[in-house]
């Protein structure tokens, strides 16, 4: 093993943090980050699918013939996505409503299929889980950060409540005279906001 499991985990959190360093899987990034709760919820759902599919793909990597590997990956991923969809619908209905069509679309998130293909199919299951977890949490963090920026600047408030467990609420962060940039919540604002954050990442990441 070239890298330790800890390293595999860590790389997803900074070196290869999606969506910033690989400009892949941008659709959910733009669509569900109107609020921090949507961003984190989407990130966690994606993480679950990533870890499970990575685990299964790496366990089955000797059985799956190379020629039909993509088809197998897709079936495995789609199965877990359906499970997540049902689970959210049954136990986290608000989140389910907020994410809407983007839950089934995790299936076509390039990040998920990309990890199966590039990592899990070539590695043992322990590093594969670490890889899935790392990339997934990196994705969650990015989505949460974008969601937070858009929610704070776009509405002036910040609220989140995941499964009734983690509650946080702050209203009128900048005082009552603050006029929110509603632009950031609308579709065009999503592009501009992610673009500028990407630029910020470039400045911070530059050696």
């Amino acid at each position, binding site marked *: 093993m070239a890298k330790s499991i800890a390293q595999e985990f860590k790389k997803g959190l900074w070196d290869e943090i999606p969506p910033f360093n690989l*400009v*892949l*899987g*941008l*659709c*959910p*990034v*733009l*669509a569900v980050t109107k609020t921090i709760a949507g961003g984190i919820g989407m990130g966690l759902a994606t993480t679950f699918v990533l870890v499970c599919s990575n685990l299964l793909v790496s366990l089955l990597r000797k059985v799956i013939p190379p020629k039909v590997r*993509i*088809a197998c990956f*897709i*079936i495995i991923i*789609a*199965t877990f*996505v*359906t499970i997540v*969809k*049902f689970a959210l619908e049954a136990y986290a209905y608000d989140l389910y409503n907020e994410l809407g*069509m983007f839950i*089934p*679309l995790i*299936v*076509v*998130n*390039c990040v998920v*299929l990309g990890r199966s293909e590039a990592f899990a199919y070539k590695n043992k299951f322990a590093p594969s889980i670490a890889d899935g977890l790392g990339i997934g949490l990196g994705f969650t963090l990015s989505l949460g950060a974008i969601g937070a920026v858009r929610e704070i600047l776009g509405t002036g408030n910040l609220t989140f409540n995941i499964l009734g467990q983690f509650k946080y609420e702050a209203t009128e962060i900048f005082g009552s005279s603050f006029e929110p940039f509603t632009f950031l919540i*609308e*579709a*065009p*604002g*999503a*592009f*501009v*906001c*992610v*673009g*500028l954050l*990407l*630029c*910020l990442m*470039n*400045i911070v990441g*530059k050696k």
Partner: protein
Amino acid sequence: MTEPFFELMFAGIFVNNIVLAQFLGQCPFLGTSKKMSTATGMSMAVVFVLILAAVFTWFINNLLVKHDLDYLQIVSFILVIASLVQFVEMFLKKMVPPLYSSLGIFLPLITTNCAVMGACLINAGKEEYLFMDCIINALAYAIGFGLALILFAGVRERIILARVPKPLEDASIGLVTAGIIALTFYTFQGMV
């Protein structure tokens, strides 16, 4: 058809533009927009695959609903789309090799192009849509995708000539540009 042709087309191309209003298909939108020729090729491929996928998934969805197998929707849709893309890829490789080599890595990525999957899911979600509605809707979305991509590629080709601050280069300035294009499409909101 349950809705007038023009309304459906206009809504699909401009108001609910699949890339700029519904955030679907971002990967090829940013990935293949650096050159006009690639952008045109990608748009063609998406138009072709999207319409074929709409036809197939319409039949499959009806079959699933009829037999109470809704829970297989995601799995079966993605499999149909994946096989279709494979087919288009083989077709292009044999018939139009230059286009095949210029689309490169992004052709297999149509599989993971959420524009295709998304359009099929939207169609499946509108249960009162008849066959023709679905096809027209898919056509409108595909044209909308092509329009957005080609407009974007046109702007991006010029950005190369401009002096962009270092940290903003590439994807970053691309996204900001896309935001401004999305702003122009945003004015269509509420028209249909």
